[in-house]
Every structure is written in structure tokens, then in C-alpha cells.
């Protein structure tokens, strides 16, 4: 969706050069050392241009080495600037929708005024009518409406948003397609989720995550070690009557310090956030994305996440002596005007299996009784017809009150359905119990595979449901979750999370309701659905624009990839040094001590070409790894041992051998160009 617009391309290109500024590079210690090296060799080259070179070092050598140092710096800057540009372009395309819109602000006593969207402040109240875009993030305080969120989620079906419910918030840039809403604005300009997200992909503004800081420390430590190693080579050379030039020592230093990872570490961090953004996840901090990779326990709501939102009939069970045709007709009567999801799915079930038999004429004389939470019944009442459908105990007491008879198989059927995790609905007509509808929670297709993958990652899944333990355990088993929390209340959820954390687990939770807010805040990683309430979003550290709770899987993978990419490139960078030593150490001593030829195991053509080849390899390998830094190392859900063995083989062993080949090839190329 994000088009890499020209504007961001130009900005990235400009930043690539602008960030050669030492004040900026100070934040990247490894690249700062390269900057010092590049400046030094450039000065030497300029000096050698006017005066005879010291130590008879050819000018072309000094000049090309310094050019490649500058290129190394530019490659590193470009990786960061373009990662940033990609992220910004994406975030801005989401944000642009909300710009330049006109909002109807309600001033007081219902007086409206027209203001640009950028003037809206927190707690302003605006009116939006059908066909208009929502100008800013807000919460519906009055009304219900269908909203087209395709601009953000890509999902074309409109969603219903309603005041005083768990789906009361609206996002800037979405379009109202029906009715009229009063919306309270919840963020000031520049403070919306998107604004926060944009600051996370800005290299200059973003905060380093704890893992990134730790890695930085390691890289600085290695740089210091190599500084000592290279600096002391000068006196050791003098002892052996071998004068080493500054250019050569700086070349060795730049090749040894971990430039590959040091130059790409910033791009890796930004790309991780950008990948989350591409999956329509808004993270409040880079740390939240990294934490996702460490999650041990995942709490998921049953309804809407594990099961489809509504229950579906799977079987009509008429009692003895009741004809199926008659039973299905009675059910149809009870459901014609039932607006609950169950009512609609029952009608669909009848149409599919038995055919509709109630016509509009039949229902003319009837009055309908809607479902209510108190009676837990619905049905219709007419001159010769009285049909009720509802919870078994509600129907039972209704029948008993009318001194009707309860068939003997009633309780048996009811129990059987409960045992399998279903919900029984009893149907009565004119005071007689006809039979039972077996309603069932339908597990979302494909959910089992997702839980299987989570298990392979080592993540323990827990289903949260208001159902009784019996029903909950059946659904849990069917869906393949590891555990469940039945009859959950907000306190119960909170205590469950606290107990898991006390045992040393990191807990993630998805939620959308206001009553989820405390648990979302307590969890190490709280993901709020974009459709959820403002309270839930504020308590969470990520917001999912698609409101798809199983997306946590992708979030976890992004978090893990982020760490893996850093780890693998660090290993690769350090492993490369072995070959670089074999190329440079013989080269720098060969002129005075011919015995060093024994260490020239790559059989490189001349000292200057082997040093230059190594410097070029060092710069080019960074370019070749930029796509990997953007994409991230592929994560496969399997045990840590197997992951590590795989990574060590590719980046460790591969990192030791690949530069031998690369440097040799470059040396041959330089030889053919006559640069030896």
C-alpha cells in the first residue's frame, strides 16, 4: 500500500549525505571511527598529491582506499535513511487521509462551526454525517454508524461503530457511510498513534531499545579492542625494522571493527518497526516490538478470536412425537423477527436444510417478543399461536408455570449438548416443549494451525471466556489452545496475568473492551483492537488497525526477527575478520619481512591490491546485506537449538569462509585492471 513516493526518496538521498556530519555520526561509534579513518586517509592522499609520498606508497592506493572508506560511510547512511524513508512514506500515506479535512465542531448549545481538521484539540466534539471522512481519532459519544475502514485496513466490508459499547472508537481517515455521529476528539494534533509511530521510524528521534543498547556496548568494546591491536602494530613493526604507513593501519582497523553490523544496526531497528506498520500494527515503542519476541504466555478472548463471533445451530433435536417439519416451522416462527446473530444463523440453517415454510402472510397477525437479557427468551404471540425460544431453564419455568409437561429426555439432551461444549436452546409452542436446538461455537478456520505454530515457538496459549469451565474446556480442546480461563471477570484476568508474571513468564494479551484495560496495562505486551474503546487503546502498547487478534503471531515473529537479524549480522561481521587478517597482515609486513608470504594463503597478487580488495569487500558486503537488514532474517518456529545451529552454520561458518572467496575475486579483478 505504501508507495515509496519521490518526496521520501529525495529526502533519504539528502539524508545519506547530510548525515556524514560528525555530530550525527557520534551516535554510531563504529561508523564514527570509519569517519575518522576516511578523513585521515583523505588528508594523506591530498598531501601525497603535492609532495612525494612517505614510504613510497602509491597515490592511487591511498586515494582509492579513502574513496572506499567514504563509500562505506555512505552505504551505512543510505541503509538508515532509506529504511526511515520507507517507514515514513507508509505512515504518511495513512496520515495524509486525515489532512486538509473540514470538521464540524460543536461549540456550545449545538452551534456548529467549520474548522480545518488540524485545529481540532482533545475533547472537542464534532459531528460527522454519512459520506464524510472522520477527521481525527475519536470516541463516539452519540449514535451508531457503519464505517468504511478500507483506507487503513484494506478490508472492504464496513464495520459498525456505536457509542457506549466496546466498539466506540473511530480512526482518522476512515469514512462514515451511514447515519450521523457525535464524536469526542481524543488526541491533540501530533499526538495520535500515527504520529507516535512516525517518530519511531525517524532515525534522529527514535529511542534505542534495551537490546540495541546492549549490542551497541558490545560493538564499542570490540572496536576498542581492535583499536589497541592496530595501534600497537606500529611499534611492533618498528621492532622488526618495518615501517608501517598510517593508511595501511587505518585500513586494517576499518576492516576489523564490526562495520557490517555497526553500519546496519540502525536500519535493522527502523525496518522492524516499518514491518510492523506494514502489517497495520501501531507500536507505541520499539521496545514493545522487541518484547513481543520474548512472550511466553498469550491470552486470547474466545469470542471473535478463537471462535466466530456468533454461535451457529448444528442440529435440531425434536422430542418424541414431534414431527421435524412442525418443529422447524415453530423455530422459524420464533426466529423471523429475532435480530440477534443466533436468530439470523438459525434462519440460515433452516433455509439450507429444511426450506423456509413461513410466508409473510403468516406473520401478519403476530406480535414479536424480542430477546432480552432478563427473560432470555424471544418468540412471537398471535391469536392461535404462541412460540418461545430461549435458554433451557427459562423455557422450563415457563412451561411449569403453565402446568405443562416436561418430556423425560429433556434433561438428558440438554446435558449431552453441554458436555460437548454447545449451548442448548429449548423451543416451545402453545405451552408444549417441542425440542431443542443445538447451538455451537464455531472455531475459526485455520486457527488450529496458528496455535500449533505458537506452540512450536514455545508460547503457551490461554483462552479467556465467560463460559462455564465445561464448555470452555471443550472449545479449548477443539481449538487446540493449551489452557483456558473460564467464567472470566476483569479481576480474574488481572490476577491470572499477575500470577503468570510472578512465575517469571512474559504475558501478552489482546483485548478491546474497557474492562480489558487493567489487564492490558498489566500484561507485558497489550495489543488493543482498533475497534476497541479508547481506554483499552491507551492501556495497550500496540494497536492493531485490522482488529485481528490472531495477528499477534506476526508481531511475535517481527520481534524475534529484529533480534535475530542483529545477532546474525554481528556474528557474520566478526567471523569475517579471520579472512581479513589473512589478507592484510601478510600484506603490511611483506615488504620488510618476506617470510610473511607463508601467511598469504589466498595467494593475493600484491600487498596493495590485497589491502584494497579487503577494504572494497568490507564496503560491498554491507550493500549486499542491506536487503537482509530491511527484510529481516527469516524466522521459523522451531526450538532454540535448531535455530542457533542453523544461524551459526550460515552466518558463523559462512562468515568465516565467504570473505576468502570475495577478497580473492576482488584481488583478481584489481589485477586485471592493472592496479597492483
Amino acid at each position: 500500500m505504501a508507495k515509496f513516493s519521490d518526496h521520501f526518496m529525495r529526502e533519504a538521498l539528502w539524508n545519506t549525505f547530510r548525515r556524514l556530519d560528525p555530530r550525527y555520526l557520534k551516535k554510531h561509534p563504529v561508523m564514527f571511527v570509519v569517519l575518522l579513518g576516511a578523513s585521515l586517509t583523505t588528508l594523506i592522499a591530498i598531501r601525497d598529491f603535492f609532495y612525494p609520498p612517505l614510504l613510497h606508497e602509491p597515490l592511487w592506493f591511498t586515494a582509492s582506499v579513502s574513496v572506499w572508506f567514504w563509500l562505506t560511510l555512505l552505504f551505512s547512511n543510505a541503509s538508515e535513511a532509506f529504511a526511515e524513508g520507507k517507514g515514513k512514506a507508509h505512515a504518511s500515506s495513512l496520515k495524509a487521509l486525515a489532512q486538509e479535512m473540514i470538521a464540524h465542531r460543536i461549540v456550545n448549545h449545538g452551534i456548529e462551526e467549520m474548522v480545518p481538521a488540524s485545529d481540532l484539540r482533545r475533547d472537542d466534539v464534532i459531528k460527522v454525517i454519512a459520506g464524510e471522512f472522520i477527521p481525527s481519532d475519536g470516541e463516539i459519544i452519540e449514535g451508531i454508524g457503519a464505517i468504511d475502514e478500507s483506507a487503513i485496513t484494506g478490508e472492504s466490508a464496513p464495520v459498525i461503530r456505536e457509542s457506549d459499547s466496546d466498539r466506540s472508537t473511530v480512526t482518522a481517515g476512515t469514512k462514515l457511510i451511514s447515519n450521523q455521529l457525535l464524536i469526542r476528539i481524543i488526541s491533540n494534533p501530533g499526538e495520535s498513534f500515527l504520529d507516535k509511530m512516525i517518530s519511531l521510524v525517524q532515525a534522529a528521534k527514535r529511542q534505542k531499545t534495551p537490546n540495541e543498547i546492549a549490542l551497541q556496548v558490545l560493538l564499542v568494546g570490540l572496536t576498542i579492542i581492535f583499536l589497541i591491536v592496530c595501534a600497537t602494530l606500529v611499534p611492533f613493526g618498528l621492532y622488526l625494522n618495518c615501517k608501517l604507513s598510517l593508511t595501511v593501519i587505518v585500513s586494517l582497523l576499518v576492516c576489523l571493527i564490526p562495520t557490517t553490523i555497526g553500519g546496519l544496526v540502525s536500519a535493522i531497528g527502523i525496518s522492524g518497526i516499518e514491518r510492523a506498520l506494514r502489517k497495520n500494527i501501531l507500536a507505541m515503542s520499539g521496545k514493545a516490538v522487541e518484547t513481543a519476541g520474548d512472550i511466553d504466555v498469550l491470552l486470547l478472548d474466545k469470542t471473535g478470536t478463537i471462535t466466530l463471533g456468533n454461535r451457529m445451530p448444528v442440529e435440531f433435536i425434536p422430542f418424541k412425537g414431534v414431527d421435524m417439519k412442525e418443529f422447524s416451522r415453530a423455530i422459524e416462527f420464533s426466529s423471523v423477527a429475532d435480530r440477534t446473530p443466533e436468530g439470523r444463523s438459525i434462519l440460515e440453517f433452516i433455509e439450507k436444510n429444511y426450506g423456509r415454510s413461513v410466508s409473510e402472510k403468516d406473520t401478519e397477525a403476530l406480535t414479536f417478543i424480542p430477546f432480552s437479557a432478563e427473560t432470555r427468551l424471544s418468540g412471537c404471540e398471535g391469536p392461535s399461536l404462541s412460540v418461545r425460544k430461549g435458554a433451557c431453564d427459562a423455557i422450563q419455568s415457563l412451561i411449569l408455570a403453565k402446568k405443562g409437561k416436561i418430556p423425560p429426555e429433556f434433561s438428558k439432551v440438554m446435558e449431552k449438548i453441554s458436555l460437548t461444549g454447545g449451548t442448548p436452546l429449548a423451543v416451545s409452542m402453545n405451552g408444549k416443549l417441542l425440542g431443542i436446538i443445538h447451538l455451537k461455537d464455531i472455531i475459526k478456520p485455520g486457527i488450529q494451525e496458528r496455535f500449533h505454530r505458537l506452540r512450536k515457538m514455545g508460547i503457551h496459549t490461554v483462552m479467556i471466556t465467560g463460559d462455564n469451565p465445561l464448555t470452555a474446556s471443550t472449545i479449548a480442546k477443539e481449538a487446540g489452545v493449551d489452557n483456558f480461563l473460564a467464567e472470566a471477570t476483569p479481576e480474574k484476568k488481572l490476577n491470572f496475568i499477575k500470577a503468570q508474571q510472578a512465575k517469571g513468564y512474559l504475558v501478552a494479551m489482546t483485548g478491546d473492551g474497557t474492562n480489558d484495560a487493567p489487564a492490558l496495562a498489566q500484561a507485558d505486551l497489550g495489543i488493543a483492537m482498533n475497534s476497541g474503546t479508547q481506554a483499552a487503546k491507551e492501556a495497550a502498547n500496540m494497536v492493531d488497525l485490522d482488529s485481528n487478534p490472531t495477528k499477534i503471531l506476526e508481531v511475535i515473529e517481527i520481534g524475534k526477527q529484529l533480534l535475530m537479524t542483529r545477532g546474525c549480522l554481528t556474528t557474520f561481521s566478526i567471523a569475517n575478520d579471520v579472512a581479513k587478517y589473512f589478507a592484510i597482515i601478510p600484506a603490511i609486513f611483506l615488504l620488510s619481512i618476506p617470510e610473511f608470504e607463508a601467511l598469504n594463503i589466498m595467494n593475493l597478487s600484491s600487498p596493495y591490491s590485497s589491502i584494497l580488495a579487503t577494504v572494497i569487500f568490507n564496503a560491498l558486503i554491507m550493500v549486499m546485506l542491506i536487503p537482509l537488514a530491511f527484510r529481516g532474517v527469516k524466522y521459523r518456529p522451531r526450538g532454540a537449538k535448531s535455530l542457533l545451529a542453523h544461524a551459526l552454520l550460515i552466518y558463523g561458518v559462512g562468515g568465516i569462509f565467504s570473505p576468502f572467496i570475495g577478497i580473492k575475486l576482488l584481488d583478481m579483478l584489481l589485477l586485471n585492471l592493472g592496479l597492483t
Partner: protein
Amino acid sequence: MTFNGILQIALLFTALLFLIKPVGIYLYRVYETPSPFPLFNRLEGKLLSWCCFKSEDQNWKAYLKSLLIFNIMGIVILFCIQRFQHFLPLNPESFQAVPWALALNTAVSFVTNTNWQAYSGELTMSYFTQMVGLTWQNFVSAGTGMAAFLAFARGLSRHASSSQDILLGNFWVDLLRSVFYVFLPGAFIMALLFISQGVIQNFSPTLEITTLEGGRELISMGPVASQEAIKILGTNGGGFFGANSAHPFENPTPFTNFLQMLSMILIPGALTYTYGKMIQSQKQGWSIFITMVILSLMGILVVYYFESQPNPLLHGLGLDQTSGNLEGKEVRFGILGSALFANLTTDTSCGATNCLHDSFTPLGGLVLLLNILIGELVFGGVGVGLFNMLLFILISVFMAGLMVGRTPEYLGKKIEGKEVRFAILSIAIYPLIILVGAAISVLSPSALASLQNGGPHGFSEILYAYTSAVHNNGSAFGGLNANTSWYNLSLALAMFVGRFFPIYLGLSIAGLMVNKKIIQPNTGTFPTQGALFIGLLIGVILIVGALTFFPVLAIGPFIEYINLWQGRSF
């Protein structure tokens, strides 16, 4: 290389394998139970109260403070004993006061468990200095090493159940128990075994004898067995005589040689078992032990191979070279007994020598140097060896954690920026001192004047001196007269920083780690045991060592090796 030689290596490691469990359990009992021996419990309390030490648990800062105060006091006292030995008893040879630079070097050397000796004991130190000054430090410096390890390991293994500072034990108690329950009884048994083999133990003045040819010969005497035992058991390495374990009064028979090698690696090896008990995971303890054994065997086989080869320069002189490079080795130990001893003394920070490391073939010498350079963690010094290994484990686990995509953790505790900083600093401090020290030495004509050899070999000698000092090994490559002001003082500084700076860093990490929340492992957590972990740890140790010291090893021993085959020597 002979079958008999391989068999001896196997015998040594088999003996070690059988001993580490009982010794490890004993050590655990000594340190990790409130009163290991009820009989001595009251004595322990009395002794501490006489010395005005509190026996309460300390946090890392208090622990470190006690450790530093005790050791700096040790340096001052030992320095004074040497300076005033001519006023003190037990000085039958009437030795004068030790010159101040040498006295300072020796004081730091024995306090830091290095036992670098820029002097010959029999010509410089009185019996009083040897017994009260040096032997005392042999015991307590070993105890200090054990204490440092214990505090570090407790920091990693203890779990914070509340928010209060979890404490790391008490330095004075750990020190006292090390001396009384570990080193004194151990050294006593060893000394008796040594005496049974002919090691001398007396206070006689130097013996003057007339040889069969009528020549006069002076034979040094002294309380050797008692110092010999703790020298080996506490991985100190400072010999009574200048010739150290090559001297027939220190190490008379192949059996004492075997015993010395075994007891060098016994306590450092057994501590891995103790550590396993402390962290309640014997598998992890064994994994560390196996890592040490593999690294050690790699070195032993390489050195043994190169020492078994004839010297190309002696070709064509009609010499029988079938038994290998015997120059500088005692015939009673042979190639294997010398190569094995040299390896183990550089693996552990013992530094006792039964042959001249200077006379090893260039690549054999390179391995000995590398053994020390990779950080004295293959067994290593008592306590501090495993201490250093734990620092490397933290770095390895950090890398592994990143590579498997989970915030790195060790024993359920997250490794964050601060821990990484301290761990990498403790690794960086060694090359800093070694390389800078050697760089200044090769630039200064007066420092170069101490060299007997020039070229790459002379370079190796200087490199070895700083390496040995900073890693508190104490063995000398030889060929370098280190008894000059420059070497005495710069090496003293190297020994002091190399000992106490990493201890400071390790205890800081312990202080950070002890208060961390424990995270439960899941299948995404990298297990710190098993073959893959061992492989990773070996890889990290070798790569870090190789990358840091590739250039100096190339211009030192490696170039000498190439020259040797071209018929040149230095």
C-alpha cells in the same frame, strides 16, 4: 608422539574425572552450608571476632571492599617483610633486604596469585620471607580467588524473592574456610606425599659438598615440601628454587610430576561441579567442565606433536633426535611429561614450570602463549578460572540469545547493556595491558637490553612476560631478565590490574544479576548446556582470542617457525 604418551594423558584426565565429583561436593559443603563442620564452627566464629570481622552476608560493594582491603594490606605487609628480612629470624644465609622495585613486584606477584618471580628464591629470600611472607600469601591469594568466584556465582544463582538486596555471602568467612577447610588440609596431605618421594623439608643452611672429581658444589636447602604443596594446589606456581618444578628437590620423580599436574587442575575442575550444585543444574556444570577439557586437550595434542618433532637446525649433526625436542626439558619427565605439564600450567594460572618454555619449538611455544592469552579460563586459577569462564559465557549467551530471537538471558536472568559492558571490558583490559606494555618495551632501548634473543623470538619473550603477568599466570618464557626497574614496576602494575579489575567488574555484574527477576525458560530459550552450547563457547573463546592476538602471534612465534625451517634462529 607415542602410545605410552597418549595413555598418560588419558590416565591424567581419567583420574581428574573420578575426583571432581567428590571434591566438588566437598567444596559445596564447605562454602554453601552455614556450618560445614560443627566441631570447628565455634572456632570459626571466635577467629572472626578476634580479627574484628563481622560474619554477616555482604552486598557486592561490601564484599569487594573487604577483598580489596585484605589484599592491599597483604601487599604492604609482604613488601615490608622483604625490605626488613635482614632484621628478621630464620635467615641462615644472611640475605640482605630485597631491593624495593623487586620487593614491590614480588609482593604484588604473590598477592595476586601470579607468583611471577624476577629473582631466584634460594639466592634472595630468607626462610622467614619464604614461609611467613610468600607461603602465607600462597594460601590467602588462592582463598581470594575462591572468594571472588563464590560471590560471582552466588550473584548468578541466588534468586531474588523480595525487592531487597540479595547478598553475596561474606568475604572473611569464604576466605577463612578456603584456608582452613580446603588449602591447609589439601596441602598437608600433598606435602607428606611429596616428602615420601624425596622432596626436602628442613631449615638447614646451604650444604657444601665435594664432588667425586674434587670440585666444590653448593646445594640449597630449605622447607620446600610445604611450599611446593600449596604452590601447586593453589595454582600459585612460585617455586622455592629458581628452577621451579624442574629442580629435583621440588619435583623429584615422574610420580610427583603426575601428582603436581593432577592437583593443578583438581580444584579448578571440581569447582565446575560445585557451580553445578549452586545453580542446581549439574548438566550445566558438566558442560563447562567438558568445554575446559576439550580446549585443554586441543592444546596438549598440538604441543605434544610439535615437541615430538626433531629440530631442523640440528639435522645433519649426527644427533639422535627420535625422541623429539628435548632441549630445555628434564629427561626424567621426557617430552610428554614436559609438554603436558607446560600446557596445564599455562591452562591454569599456576605458572609452575618443569621445563624451559623458551626452548619449546616455535609453534609449541605459540600454543603455550595462546593458552594464557585466551584468558586463563581453561581450568584457570583456583576460583578465578571459572570466574573468567562465566564472563565468557555471558558474552556467548548474549550472542546466542540474539541469534535465536529472544532477549538474551543466563540462568533466567536477562543480560542487558550494563552486564555486557562489564563483561566486554573484562575481556578488553587484557589486550590493552599486554599490547601496550609490550609496545612500550620494544620501543625502549633499556627494556630491549634485557633480551637475550632478538627478532621474533625476543618479541615472544616480551609478549609472554606481559601475558603471564596480566593473566596472573607467573610462568616465564625465559630469556628475559625481568629484574629491572621497568619490568618490575610495569609488570607489577599489569598483575595488579589484571587481578583486581576483572574481579571488580565480575562482582558488579553479580550485584546487578542477583536482584534480577527470574524468567522461565521456554522452547525458544537457548539452553546453556549440551553439545551446541559447548561448541558455541569454544568457538567464542577461540575466535575472540584469535582475533585479538592474531597479529602478535604472527610476528612472534609464527615468523620464528618459518625462519626455523629456513635454517635461521634468533
